[in-house]
């Protein structure tokens, strides 16, 4: 048995003798993950909405003589929600497993119905149950309201043209067919002529009646401008709130729970473990040829990685069991667990290496735990900020394993084609593990002084 394995086994034995500490280390990050997840999903983050365009909307859409720039309209929506174009199959899958919060579907024939202005075309909104669903629905209703307002003018102008055509007469088009309209005005004139020229009193009487109707119609249609402008919401929204899984079991929350647990447990554990070697005065005994200082760093990183993979898989199994038992939409991707396990190992190693560095700097175990917590907490929170909100926070969080771990876990569990994301995040995590480990090794002599 190598010396590294001997020390690793010793650390695990010591850890197993502190069950209360282990329980606290597990429970605390999970509770924290749930709270942070709730805060992020309810307040901080823009909801991610899948945008399924079955009608292949053109860039320029002309309705009632008004031209809409479709990408520009979507960009306006992006201020309040992240609209991600994708096909229906992918959108359904992502909604089912919680990677997106909702799905907006533009059905086939939407643009032609809109242009035709005869009936209101429908957008379809699918959301998950509970949690953020109501917020997504509000966002989407706001979007539709905004579109309706812009379309309303075009509709009214177009409808008024028909009204004017009926009142004044002329040539118009309807559903692509051109036709001549006499118009109420000319009809009134013709009826007056008939009334004056006819010798048949019955026909004269009928002409008078028709003239009266034409005048009434003219009066009524004269007010149509105001009544038409009072017409609103030409687009109706159909909402299906049963299409996705509860946010408590969503892909995003699973990834956060795993990464948060690892961020705290691995950093605190590695920091305390390395500083304890000094507190117990053992590091000098080990360093005098029994175990190299590099080996000692490797042992603590390996300890963190081992604990990470065990705890991470337990958490994943609990999530999976809940999803399976309650037959949650989307199901649990059990076949992805080995991939997740690999991510847990490298993420645990990266967090562990960071923890060792903290322990080396702090030197004393209690100080190391406190410093590790104080350092890890803001770095984790930085990683929770949505991309693009604070650029500096985004850059700083990239230098800490948390955001990479979240992306790795989410992608490893639920992405259809996760390989490019996994390769990128694995490279980041491995690079951070090596960088923090090397920095810790440079500082190890501090523990001997």
């Amino acid at each position: 048995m190598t010396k590294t394995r001997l020390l690793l086994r010793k650390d695990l034995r010591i850890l197993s003798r502190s069950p209360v500490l282990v329980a606290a280390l597990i429970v605390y990050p999970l509770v924290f993950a749930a709270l942070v997840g709730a805060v992020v999903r309810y307040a901080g983050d823009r909801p991610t909405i899948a945008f399924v365009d079955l009608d292949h909307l053109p860039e320029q859409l002309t309705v009632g003589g008004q031209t809409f720039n479709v990408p520009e309209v979507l960009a306006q929506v992006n201020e309040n929600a992240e609209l991600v174009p994708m096909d229906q199959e992918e959108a359904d899958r992502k909604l089912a497993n919680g990677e997106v919060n909702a799905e907006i579907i533009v059905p086939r024939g939407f643009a032609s119905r809109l242009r035709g202005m005869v009936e209101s075309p429908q957008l379809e909104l699918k959301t998950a149950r509970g949690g953020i669903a109501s917020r997504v629905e509000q966002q989407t209703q706001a979007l539709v309201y905004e579109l309706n307002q812009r379309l309303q003018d075009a509709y009214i102008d177009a409808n008024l043209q028909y009204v004017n055509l009926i009142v004044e007469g002329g040539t118009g088009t309807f559903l692509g067919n051109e036709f001549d309209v006499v118009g109420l005005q000319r009809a009134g004139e013709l009826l007056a002529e008939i009334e004056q020229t006819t010798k048949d009193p019955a026909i004269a009487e009928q002409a008078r009646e028709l003239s009266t109707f034409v005048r009434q119609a003219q009066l009524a249609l004269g007010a149509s401008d105001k009544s038409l402008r009072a017409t609103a919401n030409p687009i109706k929204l159909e909402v299906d709130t049963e299409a996705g899984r509860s946010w408590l079991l969503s892909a995003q929350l699973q990834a956060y729970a795993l990464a948060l647990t690892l961020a705290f447990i691995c950093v605190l554990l590695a920091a305390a473990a390395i500083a304890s070697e000094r507190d117990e005065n053992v590091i000098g005994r080990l360093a005098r040829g029994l175990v190299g200082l590099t080996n000692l760093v490797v042992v603590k990183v390996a300890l963190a990685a081992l604990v990470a993979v065990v705890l991470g898989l337990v958490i994943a199994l609990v999530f999976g069991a809940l999803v399976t038992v309650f037959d949650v939409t989307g199901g649990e991707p059990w076949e992805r667990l080995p991939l997740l396990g690999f991510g847990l190992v490298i993420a645990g190693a990266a967090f562990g290496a960071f923890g060792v560095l903290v322990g080396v700097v702090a030197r004393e175990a209690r100080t190391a735990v406190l410093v590790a917590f104080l350092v890890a907490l803001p770095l984790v929170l930085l990683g929770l900020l949505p991309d693009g909100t604070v650029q500096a926070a985004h850059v700083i969080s990239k230098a800490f394993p948390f955001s990479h771990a979240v992306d790795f876990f989410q992608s490893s569990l639920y992405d259809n084609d996760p390989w490019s994301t996994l390769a990128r995040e694995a490279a980041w995590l491995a690079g951070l593990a090596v960088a923090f480990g090397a920095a810790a090794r440079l500082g190890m002599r501090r523990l001997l002084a």
Partner: protein
Amino acid sequence: MHPGDALALIGPNGAGKSTLLSILAGALDPSDGSVAASVNHRGPKVGWVPQKPAHYQRLSPRENLELFARLEGVSETKEVADRYIGLLDLPDDGRLTAELSAGNQQRLNVAVALLAGPEVLLLDEPTASLDPRQRRLLWQVATQVRERQGAVVFATQNLEELERFATRVAVLVGGELVFDGSLEQFKAAPEADVFA
């Protein structure tokens, strides 16, 4: 140092005794100079008893002994642990080291240093927390090392132990060597007695 030597390091607090022993043990690098040691053209096996106990508090004495024996490359770890538990009268009831008395912890500290059969034994104020019987036991163990043609270097503040056990005395003050000679020379040089 020669086989059978017992070098006493004395000096006031902060003189550098513990630092020198740490350097001799290989736990610290010297800021200047070097340590040269050879037994039969190889480095000697060194056992080090630091001033503060250096073992794992949340392991039992037996677990500590077996772990350090394995790290030292000792093959029959259980037998070796049995031997030192018996020799130094260590408790073997599964209690964690943290629950032991200071004296028991110090004896475990000594036992860990003896695991590899050291040819040079470095003792840093080893009797500070031991009762008279345990002190006698410790010096018996140190004498056995000398009798095996080994050498002992010990730091002490106790002149009685120095006179009883040392063959040579080195006096350190503020990191400087101010005296180095035999026990007889030390006794004849009252200026070397920094505690006077």
